[in-house]
């Protein structure tokens, strides 16, 4: 069998599951779930160091950035200015150039503010960042992002943390056809079948956080998502049979008594 490698900005990955590191009970649980998921990329957020409580554990003590690629995000940013500031700081910590841009425009639904997102993508790309962009599923905006140098297009399946699954399958299919850079479903996955569906539609990867972190058993869900992504990908690559409304017998007629 041919090896199936995911390439993002010339970096190669075996796993097509990207996981977030937020919302876990503690860092130990987060680290364990990531290990089980087999993910090679994890998203991380940038926040102030707690200067009054120095004993607080650091993410880097639990998840080694030398072993698992950190993908710094701009979660919580509502303007291009804030997003740029955040990612420049993230790069400063350890030279990260591959980043996840996420500029929100709506506090309730957490939908992306696409005008600010597009502006930020242009600026960051010029500064040498490889920008994976959280975006809506509008094919026109996604095309503009791609033309602006986005390293990956990451449309939402449904609002962040909603677990609703892929709401607009038609748009995701259109995006699959037109997108030349990796197409990654980011946000809205709720259960394994959602991840399978995304992969069967030909998406290059999925990004999951809440569905794993907030499951009653995050470890079991992490494993489930690992296999869902593998299963959906293999199903996509295998070339499925055409759906048919008529039955077709599986046993030969020849030799029938």
């Amino acid at each position, binding site marked *: 069998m041919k090896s199936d490698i995911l390439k993002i900005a010339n970096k190669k990955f075996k796993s097509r599951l990207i996981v977030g590191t937020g919302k876990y009970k503690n860092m130990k649980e987060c680290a364990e779930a990531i290990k089980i998921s087999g993910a090679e990329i994890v998203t991380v957020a*940038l926040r102030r160091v*707690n200067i009054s409580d120095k004993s607080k554990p650091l*993410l880097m003590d639990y998840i080694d950035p030398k072993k698992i690629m950190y993908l710094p995000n701009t979660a919580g940013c509502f303007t291009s200015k804030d997003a740029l500031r955040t990612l420049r700081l993230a790069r400063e910590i*350890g030279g990260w150039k591959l980043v996840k841009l996420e500029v929100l425009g709506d506090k309730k639904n957490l939908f992306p503010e696409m005008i600010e997102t597009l502006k930020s993508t242009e600026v960051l790309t010029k500064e040498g960042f490889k920008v994976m962009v959280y975006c809506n599923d509008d094919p026109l905006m996604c095309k503009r992002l791609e033309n602006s140098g986005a390293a990956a297009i990451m449309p939402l399946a449904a609002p962040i943390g909603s677990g609703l699954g892929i709401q607009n399958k038609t748009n995701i299919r259109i995006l699959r056809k037109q997108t030349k850079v990796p197409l990654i479903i980011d946000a809205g996955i709720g259960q394994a079948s959602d991840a399978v569906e995304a992969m069967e539609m030909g998406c290059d990867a999925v990004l999951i956080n809440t569905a794993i972190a907030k499951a009653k058993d995050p470890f079991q869900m992490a494993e489930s998502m690992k296999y869902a992504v593998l299963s959906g990908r293999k199903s996509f690559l295998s070339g499925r049979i055409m759906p048919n409304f008529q039955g077709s017998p599986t046993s030969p007629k020849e030799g029938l008594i």
Partner: protein
Amino acid sequence: MNKKNKIKIVVNGKILTVNLNFSLKNLIEKLKTPINKVAIELNEEIVDKKKLSKIFFKNKDKVEIVHFIGGG
């Protein structure tokens, strides 16, 4: 210590009173910040971590020290 030799700086939103000749390196040491795991901003400009000992605070300087935490 004479009050004249003291200045106020804001570190991650908290006001700290420090000596006039206090450097960014002194601050990082005081806070026991693991330097290779953070990025530092002084008045919204990113600071080169190699030059910490050469940067001395002025009154009302704003410092941000950030690191990675869990996020989606």
